[in-house]
């Protein structure tokens, strides 16, 4: 495997007349934690959705280099199921399957995609749930869980496929403030375990804490990137300064401010 795990080059994406990504370049190395910040509508979510092929790019390249295979996600002929087996994603709205218990949610993909036996998949699911403090909720259904618990189950569900990289799309934005911490603790644990992560978030304090690299997106371009100390301590671009100033006074985005 030569080169970064994930490489995006000159990626463009528009929805109708609305250009959401305008020439994104991004490289993510193995074990790296990259945090995307920026106002709502700056393109963070769309960028993540181009990585696992939920959105097809209009121009540019998205390449995923995993041990044993190089997958060009932007190629129309790529096996998207193969891409998604290696890329985990967690959404803002959890999107757990309501007809399945927590352990069944987690075991579904290992059983059906990786063809593990039910016993094996559910045993592994229980172990993984236990690791993130959800042992006693394993048999509960999503509507019996708090938002924070649901989101933790969603993270465990993504991890159960043993992905090479995990994408977090504003995973705390739908949570009550007092539940944000338990979800971020899980992410923090993953970063210390060396997981490769790309995360879009409004939690500036957390970004500063865990990120190896922070990218500030505005209107579909990467305006500024650097270490957390650079971006939060000494932003050079006026738009970055403006955004961070607004975030710190709590007016930049709808909800989820914690700067």
């Amino acid at each position, binding site marked *: 495997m030569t080169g970064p795990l994930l490489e995006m080059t000159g990626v463009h994406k528009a929805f109708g007349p609305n250009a959401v990504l305008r020439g994104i370049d991004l490289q993510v190395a193995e074990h790296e934690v990259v945090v995307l910040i920026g106002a709502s509508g700056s393109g963070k979510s769309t960028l993540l959705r181009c990585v*696992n092929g939920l959105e097809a790019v209009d121009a540019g390249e998205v390449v995923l280099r995993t041990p044993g295979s190089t997958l060009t996600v932007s190629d129309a002929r790529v096996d998207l199921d193969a891409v998604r087996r290696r890329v985990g994603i967690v959404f803002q709205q959890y999107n757990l399957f309501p007809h399945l218990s927590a352990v069944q949610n987690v075991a579904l993909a290992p059983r059906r995609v990786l063809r593990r036996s039910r016993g094996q998949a559910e045993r592994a699911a229980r172990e993984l749930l236990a690791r993130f403090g959800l042992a006693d909720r394993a048999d509960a259904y999503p509507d019996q869980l708090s938002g924070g618990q649901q989101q933790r189950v969603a993270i465990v569900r993504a991890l159960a496929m043993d992905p090479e990289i995990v994408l977090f799309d504003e995973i705390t934005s739908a949570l009550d403030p007092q539940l944000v911490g338990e979800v971020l603790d899980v992410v923090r644990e993953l970063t210390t375990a060396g997981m490769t992560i790309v995360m879009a978030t409004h939690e500036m304090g957390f970004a500063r804490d865990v990120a190896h690299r922070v990218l500030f997106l505005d209107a579909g371009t990467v305006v500024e990137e650097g270490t957390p100390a650079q971006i939060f301590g000494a932003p050079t671009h006026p738009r970055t300064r403006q955004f961070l100033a607004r975030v710190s006074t709590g007016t930049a985005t709808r909800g989820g401010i914690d700067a």
Partner: protein
Amino acid sequence: MSVPQGGTTAVAAPLPYVDPVRRAAARRRTVRDALIATASLAVFVGAVALWASRLPGWPAVQASFFDGEILRSSFLPTLQALVLNIKMFLVAELLILPLGLVVALCRRSRAPVLFPLRAVATVYTDVFRGTPTLLVVFLLGFGVPALDIPGLTPEPVVWGTVALVLSYGAYVGEVFRAGIASVHPSQGMAARSLGLSQWQTSRFVVLPQAVRRVVPPLLNDFVSLQKDTALVGVLGPIEALRQAQIISYDEANFTPYVAAAVLFIALTIPLARFTDWLQARQERRTSIAGAR
């Protein structure tokens, strides 16, 4: 469908405290409400009976529709004929469910190569939903046996049942389709993101949720199917309504029809109550509490 209630939280919550005076008052209210409901029903039924019995035409109607002797004598043969309705209904139901599901899946397919399936399913739905069920029964029940196709049974009961299956398959297909459409696209997105194929996503994520949601409207269609088995009687088989008609001609009296009506109602009520119960449970689940 069987979500166990209550979690597995370790600490038991203390019992909710209700003021004993209020608890007693609430119990008294429940008893009082039941008494009022019973009394009100008795008054209502009594008033209607009194009104009907004083109509000038009542004695004639009573003699031709509510003859106790004929009611008793026609009940058993009609009940025996009802067995045929039940058979037709059970067989039709088993065939309608897969047919409806396949039609719904075909109509929702998006792959260009499956376009013929989609077209056929759409035409099928339009034709059989638009044709009166009785007409379908006539066409198939008299038409197919007349074709005299070797290897195909000319048995009218069979073709009458096929007609019911085709007619109700179109309705049930639409019910399934609505159910599938009601599952939020984010569910499919989450499943595909885990690496599940399109088919696995349908099979394990979308369909289980869709089917649970459409159980009440589906049972409603089946209640309707139970009584529509009587339509097959026009082809000649002696089902309950046809049996009642025969006795009615013999006796020159309409009472056997009342017997048949009572039997059909008795047949549909269990399913109707079960549907109500399921619907109520679903409402409780989505915790929509009404104002008092």
